[in-house]
């Protein structure tokens, strides 16, 4: 079990390297554009806006942009990669031999897809990632609580859906059980998303293309983290523990 967790963390670090390359190529340009928009609007509203003081304080931040976009991004993603890798290994250990998937590789891939969907994709659909300059500082607490609420609900409902699928699979077959479980997940999360507050805080002048590019880059970064972890883990684990035919 310990070796599974170590393999998961190693897979997470390798996935983070891939995610870092992707984020550098496709995420950072959008972040730089967003910061340029933020600074331009801060400069124009400097005389009458109190929030300009906060923006100026942020401009004089303890960490330079050069460090943020290189070492900071790498360390941040690396730490997330180790953490996600460890959690992934636990999920894989729980799923192995219990989801009726047979092969370790398929199990790893399915776990990665379900984890990506519940831990990132579904919360993202309600609260999409925002670049700098989007979001009012005074609502950060409400937005964070709402995001965590969406995240926790999504993960719990996914867990319940997987357990439901296992219960139904014995009687109705794996395919039909999966369809029912997926429908339950989608319906339940639609209700949760409908019930949680919506924040519309994109400034009118913010370029739509930059927002789109940033959000797609965010999704790509998370895809690399989760699917990268799953596929590297599958490569590390598939062979030595492959079930005998």
């Amino acid at each position, binding site marked *: 079990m310990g070796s599974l967790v170590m393999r998961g963390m190693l897979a997470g670090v390798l996935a983070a390297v891939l995610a870092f390359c992707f984020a550098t190529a496709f995420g950072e340009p959008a972040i730089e554009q967003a910061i340029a928009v933020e600074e331009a609007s801060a400069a124009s509203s400097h005389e009458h806006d109190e929030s300009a003081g906060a923006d100026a304080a942020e401009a004089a931040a303890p960490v330079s942009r050069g460090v943020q976009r290189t070492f900071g991004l790498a360390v*941040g993603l690396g730490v997330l990669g180790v953490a996600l890798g460890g959690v992934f290994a636990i999920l894989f250990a729980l799923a*192995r031999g219990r989801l009726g998937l047979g092969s370790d590789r398929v199990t790893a891939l399915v776990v990665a897809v379900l984890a990506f969907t519940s831990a990132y994709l579904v919360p993202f659909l309600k609260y999409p990632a925002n670049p700098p300059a989007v979001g009012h500082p005074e609502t950060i607490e409400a*937005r*964070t609580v709402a995001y965590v609420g969406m995240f926790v609900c999504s993960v719990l409902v996914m867990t319940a859906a997987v357990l439901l699928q296992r219960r139904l699979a014995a009687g109705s077959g794996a395919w039909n059980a999966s369809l029912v479980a997926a429908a339950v997940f989608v319906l339940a999360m639609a209700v949760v998303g409908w019930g949680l507050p919506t924040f519309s805080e994109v400034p009118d002048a913010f370029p739509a293309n930059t927002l789109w590019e940033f959000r797609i880059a965010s999704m790509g970064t998370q895809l690399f983290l989760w699917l990268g972890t799953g596929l590297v883990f599958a490569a590390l684990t598939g062979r030595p523990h492959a079930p005998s035919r």
Partner: protein
Amino acid sequence: MVQASAISLPAPASAIPLREILPWAIFAFAIAFVAMYLVGFEEGAWTVVNSNVVHEFVHDARHLAGLPCH
């Protein structure tokens, strides 16, 4: 037909007992909690370290991970 497909499928991998997983699960989730807090939430809505350095250092990773930043 049912028998044939049952034979052609690989034998299901043996499940790891939950008792064996539990201590590692606590370990992994504790690490994940601290890591997600530091990268995702410190100096945003909540503050523990009380310095902007952690927040600013991982600033870009937090934005790209999709978490509310500021």
